[in-house]
């Protein structure tokens, strides 16, 4: 049977090319792998190989022809002893019609409605607990609950944790489930992700998230994208956790806030707790979640104490912000250690008769924008607070959401209070200025309330 040889696409972007030279002539016997022709693409001159065996029946496009469209018939191959058909049938493109360029018919799933139920009931006993203890307790409870949960990282076992978050876990769960790794972030993040593909639920501790930059390829390309790339067949149920952001006097390479980076990635969930109850309830949810979760802690917050409910199984759902302080005059949105400045600023503002509503986001992805919008519709003003850098910040995203969803409610532009746009300096006085202060938040709130 005669077979048409079509002008091949030899690169992802090729639409046409030059048929530079025929390497066979009519009547030649051709076997698979033989070079039929040389074709010039937009990138290079390429050899075009035969796929089938047969005899070159007729050459339809002469060598030297420029602008030959992909899928044009360029020759006809026949079987030994077969006649060449008289007229070549017109080449037909088999490629599907290009999808017309228009907005997809399907809209992104709608955001959930604001949920304002408290984290625990009034009748529940509370206990003062540090963030450090809360994190440890959450991991221990989940490791007791599920044999497939294990902790891996540098110094998590025998050293009891570089910041003592894993204190006592090796004694209780043994070296099989509390695993000291060599200093090799890229490697162990990849191994943990593979273990998650294999059905386990790893908790990966980074000594700090600054070191996770060595592992970010596995976090994003391997852990976050696999569920989608596999059409839902397999994903990475795991937690990447550790201190994030500035500590104190540790300089530029140990002081970066990665909230905005990870928040951008579909496939990841991103948590940044403020209080000990946040830390506990969200860590338990993170470990149970079947997706990769980035859990951004803060070294300065580890030793701070907060009320934590005494309950058998206290969890906080993702995507549920908490209104830490109610008010009518201005909305302050923050998360993690930024909440410290937000709450201090609210205290100072109250002295001047300005009642700020302070929202603790807790999870950045999914983000509870409904709670933010409901508050802004009430106060008509918003200030965001974070330690990270200004360009491409979390606050920048929040302000764009407010502008698109509640523009008519705004009585002033949203102000984003951020860390300064500089690498973190070491000198004590400079470091203080590089970070955010409560006074800056107060000033921003006064500006948007025109006081």
């Amino acid at each position, binding site marked *: 049977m005669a077979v048409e040889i079509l002008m091949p696409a030899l690169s992802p972007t090729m639409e046409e090319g030059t048929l530079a030279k025929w390497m066979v002539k009519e009547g030649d016997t051709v076997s698979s792998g033989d070079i039929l022709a040389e074709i010039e693409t937009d990138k290079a001159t390429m050899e075009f190989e035969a796929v089938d065996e047969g005899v070159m029946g007729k050459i339809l496009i002469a060598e030297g022809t420029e602008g030959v469209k992909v899928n044009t018939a360029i020759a006809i191959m026949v079987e030994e002893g077969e006649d060449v058909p008289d007229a070549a049938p017109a080449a037909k493109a*088999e490629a599907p019609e290009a999808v017309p360029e228009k907005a997809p018919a399907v809209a992104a799933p709608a955001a959930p409605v604001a949920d304002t139920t408290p984290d625990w009931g009034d009748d529940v006993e509370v206990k003062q607990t540090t963030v450090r203890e809360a994190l440890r307790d959450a991991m221990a409870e989940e490791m007791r609950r599920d044999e497939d949960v294990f902790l891996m990282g540098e110094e998590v076992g025998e050293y009891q944790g570089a910041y003592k978050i894993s204190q006592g876990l090796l004694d209780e769960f043994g070296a099989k489930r509390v695993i000291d790794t060599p200093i090799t972030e890229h490697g162990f993040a990849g191994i943990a992700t593979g273990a998650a593909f294999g059905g386990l639920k790893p908790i990966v501790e980074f000594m700090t998230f600054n070191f996770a930059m060595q592992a970010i390829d596995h976090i994003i390309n391997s852990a976050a994208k696999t569920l989608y790339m596999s059409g839902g067949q397999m994903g990475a149920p795991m937690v990447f956790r550790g201190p994030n952001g500035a500590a104190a006097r540790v300089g530029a390479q140990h002081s970066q806030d990665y909230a905005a980076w990870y928040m951008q990635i579909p496939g990841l*969930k991103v948590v940044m707790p403020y209080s000990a109850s946040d830390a506990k309830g969200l860590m338990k949810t993170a470990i149970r979640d079947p997706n990769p979760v980035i859990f951004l802690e803060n070294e300065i917050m580890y030793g701070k104490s907060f009320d934590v409910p005494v309950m058998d199984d206290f969890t906080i759902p993702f995507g549920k912000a908490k209104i830490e302080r109610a008010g009518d005059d201005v909305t302050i949105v923050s998360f993690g250690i930024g909440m410290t400045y937000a709450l201090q600023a609210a205290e100072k503002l109250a002295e001047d008769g300005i009642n700020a509503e302070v929202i603790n986001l807790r999870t950045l992805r999914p983000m509870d924008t409904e709670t933010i919008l409901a508050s802004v519709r009430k106060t008509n003003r918003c200030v965001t607070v974070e330690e990270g850098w200004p360009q491409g910040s979390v606050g920048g995203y929040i302000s764009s959401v407010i502008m698109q969803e509640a523009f008519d409610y705004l009585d002033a532009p949203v102000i984003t209070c951020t860390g300064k746009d500089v690498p973190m300096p070491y000198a004590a006085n400079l470091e203080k200025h590089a970070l955010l202060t409560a006074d800056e938040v107060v000033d921003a709130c006064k500006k948007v309330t025109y006081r």
Partner: protein
Amino acid sequence: MSAKKVAAKSNVSAEELLGHYREMLMIRRFEEKAGQLYGMGLIGGFCHLYIGQEAVVVGLEAVAKEGDKRVTSYRDHGHMLACGMDPNGIMAELTGREGGFSKGKGGSMHMFSKEKHFYGGHGIVAAQVPLGAGLAFSDKYKGNDNVTFAYFGDGAANQGQVYETYNMAELWDLPVVFVIENNQYAMGTSVKRSTKSPSLWERGKAYGIEGEEVDGMNVLAVKEAGERAVAHCRAGKGPYILEVKTYRYRGHSMSDPAKYRTREEVQKMRDERDPIEQVRDMLLTGKHASEDELKAIDKEIKGVVNAAAEFSKESPEPALEELWTDIYAEETV
């Protein structure tokens, strides 16, 4: 070791030889068809063909048992066929259709099958090495005797994460076979132009990992080495490295002008070392099969491949709703 020597030594049955022949030919015909569909614009983006390297996966799959896992790079079509994934689903993924293994959302480089324990299909060079060690970690954690095959190329062998993984895999005795498919070219850079190490597998010695070099054009030699590697892992002795010397006939991807090697070099390999021709010779000279029987196999495989191509053209493009699915797994709490 030459093919004939191995054949003589290991008393290979006709049935086994025919099995290898069939599986290698399936990969070759499938890849030729994929190249053809790419040329017709039905397959987009990058498409890396496995032609020439067939003996590597076919030899190693011959020593795998149910429960064993495999993970590889973006040159993954051969691995998927060899572990038993449906050619229709693979081809339809290449054409980006609903009937593909990833519903058209992964493409040539990103395909998976939970059922066949195939964990990808990874587009970042060497990422599959720690992922493979992690899969082996999960089996060791669960206490079974499964083994993971982590395939990577000579190019990936220069990535730092390979050595981070070697270190931990040996430290923790993980049951993983590191298979270096040394096809001699990392895209356009020959091994000689990328390292002064005379051998790649021997780098594992620095971490205490045993290994060996294997003739990757000879399926029986690959299988024999694979048996040693798997026995080592199943016995709890930790990882093992196979540096399988192989050769890809086609370009790195479809858009490779192949100016870094001569046409004669490729042709010499094809004429003298072709893995399929070697088995074909053994079958014919050993009178295990007749020309007609082999022709019948060839015809049967062409039928399967043509059916896969048809399926991949007829399967519809994914529904637009698929854009928004499979980003997050449902919470199971």
